[in-house]
């Protein structure tokens, strides 16, 4: 989060427990919890190794390493080796011998290392290292000095990325540890839940347990992943956006919607099967929090923007979702696209991520105002004064001046018009689309956007 946000490059500390059993991921969690007390951002590289960002120029790196080693040694009674460097790759190598690379010294430190250390990037095969050694390239410095294009051509893009790392370029900021694994709460009933009511009955205490767990850590979640395992071995998972202030009842309601949908759909699949109750039965239920926020941070957001009226409105909308289903309340937003229907996206409120905002200017889209009613698509005929159909030509013009519109058996004269504006999209792919648009104002006072695609005119939208 803030690691990426801060503009100044940071230092990276990597700590390794050389004697740690690589398979034992679960036992490593308490170690991470202890490190959490020292620093909030911990990326787990593998069981027994983790990385922590340090602020550049904060000083006292050696002292911090001492504290870290003492903490870990006191907890698990194992040796811990730390290494500090600017980049993650250099820090991993420094951790092998417990060195602190001075700021800006990454390239010099890496240049002297043996070529086999390239495997620590996880990007190259041992055979590649061997080939490089046969080519006379024995150190990372020699490898970094090779022309990049040649490396990419000979060994592929992975090796090229490894070369950048070997040159001491910082590859990526650290990704802080995601949701703590033991924050997931699960329940496994003795007899599988066959009905939604049984499952929801169990979901309520489960949600309360989750909230109590988060509360004890001064955390709150903005996402909730509901996982249900069915008797058939099928696992279903769905992530919801939740309000940081959601109560156990809110969370249980999410579970209810989710299960209703799943149990219904699995019944539908197994229609006619003798054991149709079994196919939909839920044997385990799991709730995983995501997007963890500090409670104080979350509360600040709440109090800054949410006044009582908004909170009441959102409560009403949530009640509505429980009545009509989560898909019933939709939020619309502008998104990427050129055509009318492509430009407007919609998502179920709080149940789906909102549509992405437009990333480009989309030249060729009609400027505002857009039609107020869209998506009807009724077929229409555009006729000229003599009554012959008007065609949109490939060069972008019309075959004749449009004079009337025949819509549902009625002929309505055109009072004013503009266009046509042709669009040719994705001509290089099978999804190619060519259409043209025409604005007309009719004698009865209505105005419409007509779309001609594959020489058929339809109403794209009514201005209303």
């Amino acid at each position, binding site marked *: 989060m803030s690691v990426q946000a801060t503009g100044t490059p940071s230092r990276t500390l990597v700590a390794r427990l050389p004697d740690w059993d690589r398979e034992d991921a679960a036992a490593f969690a308490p170690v991470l919890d202890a490190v959490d007390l020292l620093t909030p951002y911990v990326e787990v590289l593998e069981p027994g190794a983790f990385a922590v960002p340090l602020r550049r120029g904060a000083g006292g790196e050696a002292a911090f390493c001492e504290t870290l080693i003492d903490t870990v040694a006191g907890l698990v009674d194992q040796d811990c080796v730390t290494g500090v460097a600017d980049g993650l790759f250099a820090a991993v190598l420094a951790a092998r011998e417990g060195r602190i690379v001075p700021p800006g010294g990454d390239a010099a430190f890496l240049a002297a290392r043996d070529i086999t250390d390239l495997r620590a990037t996880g990007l190259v095969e041992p055979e590649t290292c061997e080939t490089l050694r046969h080519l006379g390239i024995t150190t990372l410095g020699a490898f970094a000095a090779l022309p990049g294009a040649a490396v990419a051509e000979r060994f592929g893009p992975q090796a090229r990325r490894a070369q950048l790392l070997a040159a001491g370029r910082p590859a990526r900021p650290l990704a802080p540890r995601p949701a703590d694994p033991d924050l997931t709460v699960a329940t496994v009933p003795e007899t599988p839940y066959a009905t939604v009511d049984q499952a929801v009955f169990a979901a309520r205490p489960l949600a309360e347990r989750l909230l109590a767990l988060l509360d004890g850590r001064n955390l709150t979640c903005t996402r909730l992943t509901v996982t249900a395992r069915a008797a058939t071995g099928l696992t279903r998972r769905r992530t919801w956006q939740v309000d940081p202030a959601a109560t156990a009842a809110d969370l249980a309601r999410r579970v209810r919607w989710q299960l209703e949908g799943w149990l219904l759909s699995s019944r539908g699949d197994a229609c006619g099967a003798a054991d149709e109750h079994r196919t939909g039965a839920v044997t385990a239920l799991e709730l995983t929090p995501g997007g963890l926020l500090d409670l104080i941070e979350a509360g600040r957001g709440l109090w800054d923007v949410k006044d009582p*009226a908004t909170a009441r409105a959102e409560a009403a909308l949530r009640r509505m979702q429980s009545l009509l289903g989560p898909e019933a309340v939709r939020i619309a937003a502008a998104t990427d696209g050129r055509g009318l229907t492509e430009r407007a996206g919609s998502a179920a409120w709080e149940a789906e991520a909102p549509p992405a905002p437009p990333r480009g200017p989309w030249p060729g889209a009609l400027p505002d105002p857009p039609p107020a009613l869209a998506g009807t698509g009724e077929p229409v005929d555009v006729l000229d004064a003599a009554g012959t159909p008007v065609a949109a030509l490939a060069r972008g013009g019309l075959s004749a001046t449009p004079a009337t519109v025949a819509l549902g058996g009625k002929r309505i004269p055109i009072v004013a018009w503009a266009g046509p504006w042709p669009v040719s999209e994705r001509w290089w792919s099978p999804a190619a689309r060519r259409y043209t648009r025409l604005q007309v104002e009719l004698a009865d006072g209505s105005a419409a956007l007509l779309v001609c695609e594959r020489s058929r005119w339809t109403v794209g939208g009514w201005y209303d």
Partner: protein
Amino acid sequence: MATSVAAALAAELGLRTAAELRPATEAGDAPPLTRTRSAADTPPVALAGAAARPDALPATIRPPRTILPVTPDIAALLPFGGLATVTAITGSRRGATSLLWRLLAGPTRAGAWCALVGMPGRYPLAATAAGADLHRLAFVDAAGPRIADAAGALAEGVAALVVPSDGLSPAQARRLTARARKGGTAIVWWETRPVAGPDARLEVARVRWRGLRVNTDRRWGAGRLHACELDVAAHWRSGGGHRARVWPYGGEPQGNVVELRPKGGRR
């Protein structure tokens, strides 16, 4: 756990206890996003005030608790200068959707949640073009008898609720209106069937589309539709009518801001 968190929060944020806060909440009853009536708008709301007013309202109409802000062109058409209690828009008239979006532009911009129940086919970007904030506009998919359920669930929550009047029976409509008045929600009837007694009924008397040309004998028509001009007639329950010219999508010519022509009528 929870109590220690609360104490930590209070200490860090410098909060006061609930007892200290109570007088403040009682004094400012109305939510901050709504505009409270000022003395300049209408006579004071004292008990004697209703009888003393020259245009005394029927006893059933009390001044609404919350008045949602609207854009200035719409404000001239509404009795309290803002969106409150019951408004009806004649849905059969052309341009009514544009008028609806313009009506909702003020409340949604002010951060109030508005909900449209059972009105499919509306193109949301037209609302943006008319100035509404889509983040505060909930489109509720409902049809048939579910419209009444949905509207009932929302009536005491959202700030403004748009409902097609033919989705509800007259009795349901009366109940909904009563609940909305109690809860301070503004109901906007999308009048596909006449409803009884709205505080204001807005009707688009005439719509003119600007920007298209006759383009005689042309194969390629110049111009483009860039604006629309609505002549809106408002009939208030308290009597009197107002007319205003509304440009929902902008493009208003200079010097013709909002023309307010109060009719002589029953004044």
